[in-house]
């Protein structure tokens, strides 16, 4: 997918206290749903936008309980894994057969995935 150029809110939050305030206050309206849907590359119907606003707001209201958890300073830094990923030997192995992979594509021609024209349309 292409990088997305939809702008976020200007005032990027960095302060811990303001983060927690943001958690507590967050409500999602239809404009915000539309902004997120553009970021997520998902087309939503007007009815979906309306219902999504209510559902996301109530889920975020529940998630706001994270604000109340007291984390003794310094706040813990997340450790992402039990151990570092184990890399396999850098050896050349056969690839999947092109025909087997291309067979799953909605449109494939002459070794290429076919999509609508991107540059220089009519």
């Amino acid at each position, binding site marked *: 997918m292409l990088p997305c150029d939809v702008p*976020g809110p200007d005032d990027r939050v960095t302060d811990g206290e303001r983060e927690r305030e943001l958690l507590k206050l967050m409500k999602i309206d239809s404009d915000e749903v539309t902004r997120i849907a553009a970021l997520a590359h998902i087309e939503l119907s007007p009815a979906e936008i309306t219902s999504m606003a209510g559902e996301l707001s109530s889920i975020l209201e*529940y998630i706001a309980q994270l604000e109340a958890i007291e984390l003794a300073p310094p706040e*813990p830094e997340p450790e992402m894994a039990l151990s570092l990923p184990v890399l*396999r030997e850098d050896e050349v192995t056969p690839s999947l057969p092109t025909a087997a992979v291309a067979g799953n594509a909605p449109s494939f021609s002459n070794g290429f995935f076919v999509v609508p024209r991107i540059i220089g349309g009519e």
Partner: protein
Amino acid sequence: MSTDDFFGSSLSEVSAAIGAGSLERARYAELWLGRIREHESRLHSLIHFDEGKARARASATTSGSLAGVPFAIKDNIVTRDEPTTCGSRILGAFQSPVDSTVVGKLKGAGAFVAGKANLDEFAMGSSTEHSVFGVTRNPWDLQRVAGGSSGGSAAAVAARLVPAALGSETGGSVRQPAALCGVVGLKPTYGRISRSGLVAFASSLDQIGIVTRTAADCAWILREIAGHDPADSTSSREPVPDYVAAIDNDISGLRFGVVREALASLSTEVRDNFNDALTVLRSEGAVVEEISLPILSSAIAIYYVVANAEASANLSRFDGVRYGFRSADSSDLQQLYRNSRGQGFGPEVKRRIMLGTFALSSGYYDAYYGRAQRVRQRMRTDFASALSQVDCLLTPTTPGPAFLIGEKTSDPLAMYLSDIFTAPANLIGIPAVAVPSGFTDNGLPLSLQIMGPHFSEGRLLGVANRYQTRTGFAQVVPPEFR
């Protein structure tokens, strides 16, 4: 072995009988295929079942510890000979060119794929109601859900359509349906089983799990499929112990911590059942004490930020270009992405991608994803501290028994909360097993959850095996499927 008792036999007994020539592999497989033919239509546990092809595969199996054993494979685990749908429209007619590592290992041990099991779309759900192919019913009450997201796997094992199944776990998706269907569900340590060929949902949480009637069968299968895989860099190099030998270990003297915060909101019926289970463990010489883990109540809030943030990234690969469904009515590439995803994903998947995209978006990342990861780290240290005081932690697997179909679909949050006791094991990467602990007055299964430190699967299965030997719930077949 007679036809009457074949589905009550353990996998080790079956293996011995086949090895000794007193049971034919093909006949054993045929008995199970007959069960599927007779009962599957009432359950809808399988998305894909082709009896003729399954029979052909059964006859082509090799010898091994699982010779002739049919498996239901959750349909987010790719297989070379069947379609893989993830319960979604967006996969279209996707056909994997390869088997997942885990299915390859099963086949290498002589097993075969009987069918692909139903699931909530992309494993996102707790009831298997979010499958584009329709809901799976609970074999103990066909009006109730089988749980989820591995509902098809759990229902198929509970109804004795297959002796074993594979599911996947992100927040309890093997243990919760196993609990609701009255079977054993194991969520192994993060990295214990290769995930190569498991369609990714949330990569820091996902793990393939096992559904069986008994802990002994679970150990029999885990021994075959655990271990490092060069194709999965998150799979562990920790040696694979002899899980089958471990199930006979004495549990006398083991220390169990009952998580106090899990007991607060339980109904009397569920609490009494849980206390009965503690009595059984004590009578086996175990030491049972209460332990406090207040962080437990934050599990769902952390889970729904972290899992959905990761899902929003993982599911970006479904874009209508390289495989699966493509919307027909798109004049440019951006529209092709948006329409294919808008029409291809179901409501729950869209909701989660949206939530995850929001939590990672500029201006909110620190408040949501950052905060959730810091609280998750706190959960890790609190559980590690608890597990330094006791050998295992105990909770009910779920707050209650199977709910009615449709009861929670209009309230996503209520659905999410059925995973409150299971999600911590995924968030911190520890193993946990769900083992049937009896029935409600209405005849619905209840379940005990046993959690342990990383790589303690042998200990957990040993405790579960001892408990099952004492209680006999594994022998009870749902009345409609006798």
